[in-house]
């Protein structure tokens, strides 16, 4: 339906305050949404990272920042290594990688570490976005582990 709530909740999930009003009105720079709803001629298409099995962004990355988590198979970014050269953006066939201009790095869907279900899926009122798991490892265990690391660090 093109409500764009997935974009809103993605920004919120990646905000510092985790408060929707503060995330949009106060935080500068505002957290960049990792999902985008494309709106063309009555079509609403949410686009986010597909975590490709053969990831062009990983192979194109000049620094090793873009990598495949060996355990979950998710494509992830090490923000300390990213140099903001935008080479991954050039080769992503979905247009799913964004610039975080304030930080000078790229951002994309990180599957919301620390949450059972990504924020965009959890808040989609029309169940247009679904959460499904496949791959070699247990995603939930990964999320739980990441949550512990986040609260511990």
């Amino acid at each position, binding site marked *: 339906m093109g409500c764009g709530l997935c974009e809103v909740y993605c920004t919120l999930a990646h905000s510092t305050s985790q408060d929707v009003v503060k995330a949009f009105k106060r935080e500068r720079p505002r957290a960049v949404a990792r999902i985008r709803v494309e709106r063309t001629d009555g079509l609403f298409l949410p686009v986010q990272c597909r975590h490709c099995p053969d990831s062009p962004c990983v192979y194109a990355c000049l620094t090793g920042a873009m990598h495949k988590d060996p355990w979950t198979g998710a494509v992830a970014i090490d923000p300390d290594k990213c140099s903001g050269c935008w080479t991954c953006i050039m080769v992503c066939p979905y247009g799913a990688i*964004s610039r975080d201009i304030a930080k000078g790095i790229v951002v994309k869907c990180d599957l919301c570490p620390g949450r059972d279900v990504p924020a965009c899926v959890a808040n989609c009122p029309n169940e247009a976005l679904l959460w499904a798991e496949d791959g070699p490892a247990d995603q939930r265990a990964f999320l739980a582990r990441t949550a512990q690391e986040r609260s511990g660090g």
Partner: protein
Amino acid sequence: MANTKSAELRQLPAASMTKATLPGAKYLIIGNSAGGIAAAEAIREVDGEGPITIVSEEPYFAYSRPLISEYLAGQRSLDSMLLRQPDFYERNKIEALLGTKATRIDFDRRLVELEGGRRLAWRKLILATGGAPIVPKLKGCYREGVFTFTTLADAERIGQTLQRGCIAVVIGGGLIGISLAQALVHRGVAVVMVELMDRLLATALDAEASRLVEGALRKNGLEVILGQTAKEILGRREDGRCVGGVILQDGRTIACDGVVFAIGVAPRIELAAGSAVTVNRGIVVDRRMATSCRDVYACGDAAEAYDFVHKTNRLIPVWPNAVAGGRVAGYNMAGRPTRYEGSTGMNALNCFGLSVVAAGLVDCKDDPTCEVLATSSAADGTYRRIVLKNNRIVGMVFVGDIERSGVVFGLMKDGVNVRRFREALLSPDFGLGALPDDLRRKRLPLANGQRGGASGNGG
């Protein structure tokens, strides 16, 4: 390098270095950068045990060469330049002979001679030797303060010489020259950029995009001199050994403290020269990245690999292509037949905050069969150019808003006919959503795990 900070990056393979004869490697990789590492990883995907040896004349773990610019700018530590985790070699059971130069290869007896005369046997070999920066033989080019800029050692040397308040002349307005110039500006060094062509990035960009990049550089204090190059390098009045200035071809003299040549790289083919390995400008490889010599492969800046836009093999010295070629070579070396899809010239840059992405045939003045679609907006500084041939994309340039350039790149790579939606290509909203339904479904499979044409086969 004497710099102690480098010690953490350095590996000292003392045990293996002391042996006069080294155990043979099933897989020998010469080169420890983009192509060599990609080949090693691909080999390990297929063959978990076969002994791999990497030989590299640089004494470090693989690092990201493009990051030497941020390192020189003082914005990046050596640690964060590592391409892989420090345990990469150990975990993948790779013997790394770092700081060791391969001096000669006997392709018949399958031996490589290392510096100091030690020899190493191999069964499969890949030459991932990269490129060497070109330095023209000018009067005075031996002076201290004449540099190139492709390695960490180069960055260290430049950093020792060019401090705040110095003046540097950068010869060459290509990608390396521009990334260097940005680093020098961050160091407080005044930069004069001299480019032989009538515009910057002349091989990567079209004239309009070149103009935008030039504007960004000038806005950040660079002096840009076009249509010129160095004729002679002058010594300093008080000490003739050191650089004191540059004379350009038009006779102009620029006083400076250092000169950096960034006019391109030449493939390092010396190990293949005079052998059964066919060499053109670079090492010639087929679509498996195999050379004319059995069990010998090549990739990266040293190799002439397939270009899907030009539909021929050519030198394309850019990082992503080295990785793509190295992977294909690695799979084939380990016995998994894989075909190189081909790549093309592609560059992305962030020039003082100006985002630029360009790939393929961006300038097509000589080709009447090409059509150019272009749009620009002075208001937000965006520029977009798509080059078509028979309704297929053969080139693209995005400046400013680059975020969906990859969708266009994918259409170009897969040779998709864009006749039905070509007008939409220039729209600021263009993305997968703007494609006709059938094509969009093909390129954006909805169920997880399914694969469409868009992600390619990576091989």
